[in-house]
């Protein structure tokens, strides 16, 4: 009972709330964590804008922030799917590097110029990402190795292989067309192509997650994989596909990163997986599975970028960004706990007195992860 109830309020969160007449407006708002986080982002932007209206809220800076968040957001779409199934993908940063290395090598061999080369490079990056996603998915779904361990392993393996292939030296031969258009070009006026691509990925991801059977199954697997198996959903196959989605977004991110940084950045991206996972969780996707939205992830991923830019502009030591993001992350998981607690209470199966603070996540979430 609690399972179905939980599932309904989470998967179709907004929908269910609109249908419900018993809730006040404030309660409705508070139920959608994505909306709360929009408020938080709005407050952050407002504070920085008041303190530095000319620099922070300038068209240039807004454009820069959007561009700097784009690659994280592309990664975040894939990670949102994974975390909704109560999984995790730590390998995205390394898969990004691996895909960009393979893509750069392919493009270099083709002469490193022209759109045809760039598009073949894109295919190479996507295939590389997909391959790592397939490996992750197979090991998690078929070999039953916990996702944390599998992706920790492939995180090291993908980076290691990238270093073996290149000898640790970054590759630089990127077609200029790709750099000028994808990395730095605008579609119209001051709207960067990079941001348009990220937005397109979000729309596709959003439709897949919120508007299709596949998306519904994703939530269901996160809520209760055992129940899914019993009603005949091929959980293993779905899980493999979901890790492949995460792989393909990492592959795309690798190609975008090539266009943006004009090099493979083998030494970089060490913090990328944690930044993305933190952003997705801050955006309201539950680490325990079954809850989450693409929209929330986008907002959650904008926060670190906005904070860093704002801190630099107003002259605060940018190391504070890490501190503030840490506070947000813990607050987000705490709120998630409260929400699960209330959902369980709402089902009527629970005694009226709930645990103090509702932080006892284990008791409100019996669906288990691994």
């Amino acid at each position, binding site marked *: 009972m609690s399972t179905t109830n939980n599932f309904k309020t989470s998967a179709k969160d907004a929908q269910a709330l609109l249908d419900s007449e018993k809730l006040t407006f*404030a309660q409705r708002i*508070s139920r959608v964590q994505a909306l709360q986080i929009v408020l938080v982002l709005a407050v952050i932007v407002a*504070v920085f804008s008041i303190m530095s209206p000319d*620099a922070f809220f300038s068209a240039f800076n807004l454009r820069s922030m959007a561009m700097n968040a784009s690659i994280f957001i592309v990664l975040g779409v894939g990670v949102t799917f994974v975390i909704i199934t109560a999984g995790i993908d730590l390998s995205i940063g390394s898969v990004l590097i691996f895909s960009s290395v393979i893509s750069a090598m392919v493009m270099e061999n083709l002469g490193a110029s022209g759109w045809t080369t760039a598009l073949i490079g894109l295919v190479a990056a996507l295939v590389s990402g997909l391959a790592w996603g397939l490996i992750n998915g197979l090991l998690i779904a078929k070999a039953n190795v916990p996702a944390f361990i599998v992706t920790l392993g492939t995180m090291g393996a993908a980076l290691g292989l990238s270093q073996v292939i290149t000898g640790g030296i970054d590759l630089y031969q990127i077609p200029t067309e790709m750099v000028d258009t994808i990395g730095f070009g605008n579609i119209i006026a001051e709207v960067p192509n990079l941001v348009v691509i990220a937005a397109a990925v979000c729309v596709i991801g959003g439709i897949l997650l919120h508007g299709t059977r596949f998306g519904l199954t994703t939530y269901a697997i996160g809520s209760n994989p055992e129940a899914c198996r019993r009603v005949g959903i091929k959980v293993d196959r779905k899980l493999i596909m979901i890790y492949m989605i995460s792989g393909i977004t990492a592959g795309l991110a690798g190609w975008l990163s090539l266009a943006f940084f004009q090099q493979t950045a083998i030494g*970089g991206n060490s913090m990328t997986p944690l930044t993305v996972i933190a952003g997705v969780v801050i955006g309201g996707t539950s680490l325990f599975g079954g809850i989450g939205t693409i929209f929330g992830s986008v907002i959650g991923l904008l926060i670190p*970028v906005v904070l860093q*830019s704002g801190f*630099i502009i107003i002259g*605060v030591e940018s190391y504070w960004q890490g501190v503030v993001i840490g506070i947000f992350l813990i607050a987000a998981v705490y709120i998630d706990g*409260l929400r699960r607690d209330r959902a369980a209470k709402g089902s009527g199966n629970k005694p009226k007195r709930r645990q103090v603070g509702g932080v006892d996540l284990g008791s409100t979430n019996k669906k288990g992860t691994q």
Partner: protein
Amino acid sequence: MKSTLKKSAISVISAGVIAGLSLGMAPSASAAGEDIVFIQGVKGDGFYITMGCGVDAAAKKAGAKVTTVGPAKFDATLQKPILDSIVAKKPDAILIAPNDVNAMQKPLENAAKQGIKIVLVDTTVKNPKFAASAISSNNFAGGREAFNAVKKLVPGGGQVLGIGVKPGISTTDARDSGFKSAANKDSKYTFIGQEYSDNEPAKAAQITTAAIAANPNLKAIFASNLFSAQGAATGIKQAGKEGQIIVVGFDAGPDQVKALKAGTVQALIAQQPYSIGEQGVKQAIKAINGQKTKKKITTGFTILTKDNVNSTAGKAAQYLSKCS
């Protein structure tokens, strides 16, 4: 309802934390002079800290205002967003040590287009045409200087070996080839090869012991970064050749100086980051005021050995961990 309140409270508190930090930490801006930003190659590194001290000193003298920022790692993906935020502030000039020759090219070009004067310090980009000035050590000359140190310490000649980090880094490549070309020109010395340690002391030690076994007349090793030098010293100790083979290191940060004083390395080639910073500010101010700037400036080196490390000149050549 109660929990709704609680959640709103959390949101408000989180936002409050930022507002508080922002208000509490923001330094009071001084109205005077030119507004200059120094973007380091990486935070917390003796080389850039010393450069920053030079920047501060020169700016103070000229009455300009300086803000210093930098990425936590030497990584262009971290430095680029920092540059973007700084450009949004539209300072008069930016002094920057670019993290990558390609990745920072366009962002810096765009900043220059907006009228911000750019001065490149230490590292550079692929095509620095837009920059008002580029100031750095001549790393090729640095490698030559390392060979001069070898000549001083081992006047009798013999075999010499180079151990670098890895191929493909413009600065260390130039150092290595400067050393090689100087060694090849002197008939008393034989350059036996350039090896790479991948920044692993253990690997540098292996390379060293293998080289000693194969080359009984090995007299000196030029290790162009800290870990290579430490590994080379370990390898020499392992082979029981202490005192017979010397190690020349590069840079003079606190760790390197410690190694010199402890006798694990016999000489250090110190760059002049303080001077790079000072001259950077001078060129930036000239550019802001529309005066002619020097497009390219190269700074020199100091050879540090046990004999001069405690002298006034030797102390001045060491990198700082904070400005005095």
